[in-house]
């Protein structure tokens, strides 16, 4: 499913989107499939499937640890695409990974493998627009959205360029730092949303972990909230994972209605 179609569908229902991130293969490929099912059952509208990389510089300790677990359990790009292809949920799947894994497979092949596996978006946290030309072309050709980021220090021309290049949605990093749960997200989110002028849906991530925060972010004007580390923490605990993941998703989704 394309990301734009999901946002259109939500707009008709007057809802905002919940985007959930999990690290594929943590603790196993089989488990990830079940977790994705639980997320969607709970209310997730889009699922970001992290393809783990050995050196995730944009991630905090929670997702770093998940990446390590997944790699040790044998996750790799071949297994990843196979697993993604077998997920039959009615939501867009987005691949989040680091550029060396894409470069090594080849931009064109990576984009095609995504499309073949039913993945319709790619986020690459270490690939700024300046370096993304080849992947951009490959994504266009394969009808996959390449999603760019906006941060509190992205201004002027950079902001314009990133907004022009992004498709599907724009990923707004609400504050400086790496991924991970935070206490306060409201203020910085308000500041950054006020500066962004675009037709593309605005998804806010980095630091959101509960319904209250999600509500504040949506009140500030976001079209979607992205939640990752909070789900990954539940998965890491290994306790009653599917039920708790579903419960958190439904709690967060309430804030999106």
């Amino acid at each position, binding site marked *: 499913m394309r990301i734009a179609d999901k946002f259109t569908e939500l707009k008709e229902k007057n809802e905002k989107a919940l985007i959930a991130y999990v690290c594929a293969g943590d603790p196993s490929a089989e488990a990830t499939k079940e977790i994705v099912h639980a997320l969607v059952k709970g209310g997730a509208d889009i699922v970001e499937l992290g393809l783990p990389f050995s050196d995730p*510089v944009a991630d905090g300790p929670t997702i770093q640890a998940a990446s390590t677990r997944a790699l040790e359990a044998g996750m790799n790009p071949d297994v990843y695409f196979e697993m993604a292809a077998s997920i039959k949920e009615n939501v867009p799947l987005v691949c989040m990974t680091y550029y*060396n894994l894409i470069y090594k497979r080849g931009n064109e092949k990576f984009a095609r493998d995504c499309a073949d596996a039913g993945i319709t978006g790619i986020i690459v946290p270490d*690939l700024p627009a300046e*370096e993304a030309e080849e992947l951009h072309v490959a994504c266009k050709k394969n009808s996959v959205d390449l999603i760019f980021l906006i*941060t509190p220090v992205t201004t002027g021309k*950079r902001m314009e360029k990133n907004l022009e290049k992004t498709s599907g949605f724009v990923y707004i990093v609400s504050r*400086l730092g790496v991924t991970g749960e935070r206490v306060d997200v409201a203020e910085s989110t308000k500041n950054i949303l006020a500066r962004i002028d675009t037709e593309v849906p605005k998804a806010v991530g980095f630091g959101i972990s509960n319904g209250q925060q999600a509500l504040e972010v949506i009140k500030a004007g976001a079209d979607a909230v992205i939640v990752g580390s909070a789900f990954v923490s539940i998965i890491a605990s290994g306790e009653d994972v599917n039920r708790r993941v579903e419960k958190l998703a439904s709690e967060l989704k309430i804030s999106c209605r």
Partner: protein
Amino acid sequence: MKKSMYGKFGGQFVPEVLMPALTELEEAYGRYKDDPEFLKELDYYMKEFAGRETPLYFARNLSKKYGIKIYLKREDLVHGGAHKLNNTLGQALLAKYMGKKRLIAETGAGQHGTATAMAAANMGFESEVYMGAKDVMRQHMNVYRMELMGSKVNAVESGSKTLKDAINEALRDWVTNVEHTHYLIGSVVGPHPYPMIVRDFQSVIGKEVKEQIMEKEGRYPDSIVACAGGGSNAMGIFYPFIEDNEVKLFPVEAGGKELKTTEKEALHSASLCVGEEGILQGAHTLILQDKYGQILESSSVSAGLDYSGVGPELAYLADIGRIKPCCVNDDEALEAFYELSRLEGIIPALESSHAVAYVMKMAKTGELGDLVVINLSGRGDKDLETVFKLKKEEAKEACQ
């Protein structure tokens, strides 16, 4: 060619949040690098604080034994015991001109961390250093030194617990504190403009060699040999000679135990010699990786060379054939460590021992010509414990 590239290598593969900081750094460097006041101040620090210029020493006994003329560029005599201070003084001064208050750095052997701590203490910066937990263990004297000078040292427990992981952690710090912090990278690695800035500040080595060798020998050397981890001491001594095609340039990488890789790790750190193209820590360069692009852990007896990547400009110069990548293994480096200590009364760093070892190995082949300059990038005091431990293990094995 984009200005951030060396041929197809280089670039800026970093999180969006760092792009404005890289632009700011590039602009500031462009503004100050030829500014008379900046240069005057830098010159003062280089002379009075670092102790430049360093001698180009004719290694009489080594030359005699190996049958060619060998000179040592004595970067081991720079304050702190390695070439690293050339770069940290330059970047710290730049950070001061930029109005930054805090310096962060990664370190492998602890030499760059120490040099950062020195510059920070002297110029009044708050500073924090990231160091792999494995390196904290094998180089703990340097940890004390950094702490004495007021730096906070953070042991990094992720990944291979060495230099690569320290860089990851420093990048994460920078992403969080980018507004008032300067990331003082210690080698010619990372995103543009770092490889250029570090190369320029280290080029003082090669510039001095040019004058010194003309004075002593009336000609340029036939070859220059330098060890290469990230590649800053190598680029520093090579760069002023790049246009002088008759001078052969040899970066010597750590061959570790052997030039083999297992599923998860390389038994060496020879990314120029046997690495493949990829993206690591901000740059398109030669790296050690598996078939999927996961980064392999590297290995070497010397912490400062133990890195899975190499500076993009070195990758480019190797690609066009201007430099000739080579490597020596752990045992050869150790032998050179003993040899230089005994023959010349100079204890080299294990990193620099790799360069010495290559010259010992190749002197008789004619490959190096008969006038060679070795960049003696650092002194070996920091390595005594490592060497003694290896000696003990060897003795034990011999008994069994």
